[in-house]
Structure formats: structure tokens, C-alpha cells
């Protein structure tokens, strides 16, 4: 019965039984470890999703303020698309950059962005030189803060995407071990046990048969010997009587020994 179930293709030997047993043990340890890892990651994941929610709302507010600040600049510099054009054309190298760092959460590397400002070059030295230079300066600061918020949010989001993937993989492994590998190994162990029992019984039966055969052979041999004796009995009757006398004598001896 256990032979028909889902099991690994092994020969039913004591060696493979030992192997299967250690495999089952390993699978159980691995399962508990992975389960714990998955729990730790999920905890982290929930925290991140909560923070993403908050950060997105914060971003909404910050961007609104920044847009307002830009509107102020447009008003101060005299309106029109002049400012936008000027800004776009004077862009050369990024002043505001990000770098990535790694953070380790239960064996998963989560990258986090960190913003930094390259000092010394400003592409917009002349922007708003004529009018509204102060507003432009303020706007730059406000947008700088807004971008910082965005960078923070981007780190959270990247962590979210990566954690999501990793949790899926870990959970898949946990489930595979729980529902496939462990039952399968248990099944194999059962199969090997039953097969070994079967072999034991067969061996026992064989031995019994052999013994029975020996017994029968002995009996047959005895009978034959008796028959032979009976045939020859008339000739050596006297000696037989003596023989029985001898047997009796031996018996007495034995009792003495005991």
C-alpha cells in the first residue's frame, strides 16, 4: 500500500532507510528555519508597506508646496515659459545625485537610496538674475527637500519590490518542504520499513520451511532406518535386546549427572 504512494525511487535497504531518516530530519530543520525567516521578512514587509503609505501621502503634500513655490517664481520672473526653457537649456551635470547602500534583513540585501549633493557646480547661476533671484533660490531649496522625500520613498519602494519577491520565493520553499518533500520522505521511510518487514517475514518463513524440510527428512530417514531394522530384526534380535539394555543403562547415568 505504501509502495504505491508518492515516494522516491530507492531500494529498500537499511542504508537507504538511514539516509531517508536523516533527510527527513534535515527537511524538518530547514522547514522551521525558513518559516522563521519568512515571518521575519513579513514583519519587515508590513512595516515597509505602512511607511510607504505614509510617505506617499507626505509626498503629495510636499509636491504641492513645491509646485506653489514654482508658481511664485514664475510670477516673480515675469511669467511665460521663459524660465522653463532657460532651465532646460542650461542643464549639464547633475548636482543632486543618489547612491545606494545595502541593508541586510535576515539574509536579504535591501538597497536603500541615499541622496547627496555634488558641490561646486551650479548650472543655474544666471537663472533669475534679472528678477526674482530670491524666489528661484527658495524654490531650489524647496524642490531639493521634495526630491529628498522622493528618494526616501524610492528606497522604500525598492525594498518593497525586492521583499515581495523574496517572500514569495521563501514561502514557496516553505510550502514545498511542508507539502511535498516531508510527506514524500515519510512515505519512502514507510515503504522501506514495510519492505524490510516483508523481507524479514520471508526470511523467517524460509527458515521455517528449511527446518520443516530437515525435520521431514530426518523422520523419513528414521523410518527408513527402522524399517531396515525390522527387516533385519529376525537375524539380530538378541543384539537388539542388548542394545535396549544399553540405552537404559545410559539413561540412568544421565540422571546421575544431573
Amino acid at each position, binding site marked *: 500500500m505504501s509502495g504505491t504512494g508518492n515516494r522516491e525511487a530507492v531500494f529498500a535497504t537499511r542504508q537507504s532507510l538511514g539516509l531517508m531518516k536523516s533527510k527527513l530530519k534535515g527537511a524538518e530543520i530547514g522547514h522551521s528555519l525558513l518559516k522563521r525567516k519568512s515571518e521575519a521578512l513579513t514583519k519587515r514587509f508590513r512595516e515597509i508597506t505602512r511607511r510607504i503609505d505614509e510617505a506617499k501621502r507626505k509626498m503629495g503634500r510636499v509636491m504641492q508646496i513645491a509646485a506653489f513655490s514654482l508658481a511664485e517664481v514664475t510670477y516673480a520672473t515675469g511669467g511665460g515659459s521663459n524660465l522653463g526653457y532657460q532651465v532646460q537649456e542650461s542643464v549639464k551635470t547633475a548636482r*543632486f545625485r543618489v547612491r545606494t547602500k*545595502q541593508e541586510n534583513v535576515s539574509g536579504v540585501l535591501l538597497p536603500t537610496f541615499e541622496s547627496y549633493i555634488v558641490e561646486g557646480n551650479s548650472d543655474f547661476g544666471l537663472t533669475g538674475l534679472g528678477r526674482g533671484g530670491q524666489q528661484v533660490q527658495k524654490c531650489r531649496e524647496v*524642490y531639493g527637500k521634495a*526630491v529628498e522625500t*522622493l528618494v526616501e520613498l524610492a528606497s522604500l519602494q*525598492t525594498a518593497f519590490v525586492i521583499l515581495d519577491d523574496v517572500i514569495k520565493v521563501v514561502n514557496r520553499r516553505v510550502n514545498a518542504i511542508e507539502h511535498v518533500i516531508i510527506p514524500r520522505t515519510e512515505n519512502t521511510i514507510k515503504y522501506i520499513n514495510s519492505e524490510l518487514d516483508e523481507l524479514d517475514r520471508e526470511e523467517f518463513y524460509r527458515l521455517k520451511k528449511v527446518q520443516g524440510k530437515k525435520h521431514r527428512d530426518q523422520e523419513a530417514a528414521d523410518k527408513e532406518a527402522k524399517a531396515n531394522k525390522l527387516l533385519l530384526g529376525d537375524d539380530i534380535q538378541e543384539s537388539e535386546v542388548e542394545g535396549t539394555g544399553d540405552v537404559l543403562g545410559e539413561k540412568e547415568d544421565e540422571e546421575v549427572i544431573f
Partner: protein
Amino acid sequence: MSASVSKDRQFIAVIGDEDSVTGLLLAGIGHVTPPPNASKNFLIVDTKTGADKIEAAFDEFIQRKDIGILLINQHIAEKIRYRIDTYTAAFPAVLEIPSKDHPYEPEKDSVLRRVRRLFGE
């Protein structure tokens, strides 16, 4: 492996309307790679810009190896929503931002929708 992959990602790209892009450029995120094959890391979208052009820019930005974060205005993201929904890679991080005329709606955000779905709301 991921350390070396993410090491060079130091720029922030943006696809947005003129105001958003101007503001972000003022903050100093703009970068033009020196020629040959000069390319900007920002795209200004107005009412005349077609979805195919946006999508091309989006594809270009997510394929560039030096961009860590891609900002995109939410109302523009709406135009290539299918493209953003299918984008699942970690780098670069695609971030939907509100614009001046379009306030932020969490319901439309691809990532927030994933969050909602995961928690069964």
C-alpha cells in the same frame, strides 16, 4: 552581484509636465551625458506628446544603467499604465509623483495598488 549592479545608479530621471520638470531640474537632478550619444535624463511631456513617445522614453530610462530612480507624473503614468503595471524590476525604482494640475491619487498608483491587493483591501 546586486551591489555592483546598483553601484553606478546615481541619477534621477524624470518624465513629467513642464512645471514639474523645471522644478526638479532646479533642484539639480538634471544631467546631460556628454557627446557622443548625448542624452538627457528628463523628458517634458505636453498635450501634444503621444503615448508612444512617452513609452519610448520610459523604456530608454529603465534600460539605462546609471539611473536609480525614475520619477513620472501620475497623469502621464496613466497613459502608459499597462507598461508600468507590468514593470516589476527593483532598479530603477519607478515613482509616481503628483503634478501641479493633477493632485495625487493613491488609488491609481501601481505600487500602492499592489500594497492594497496584498492586504486584501
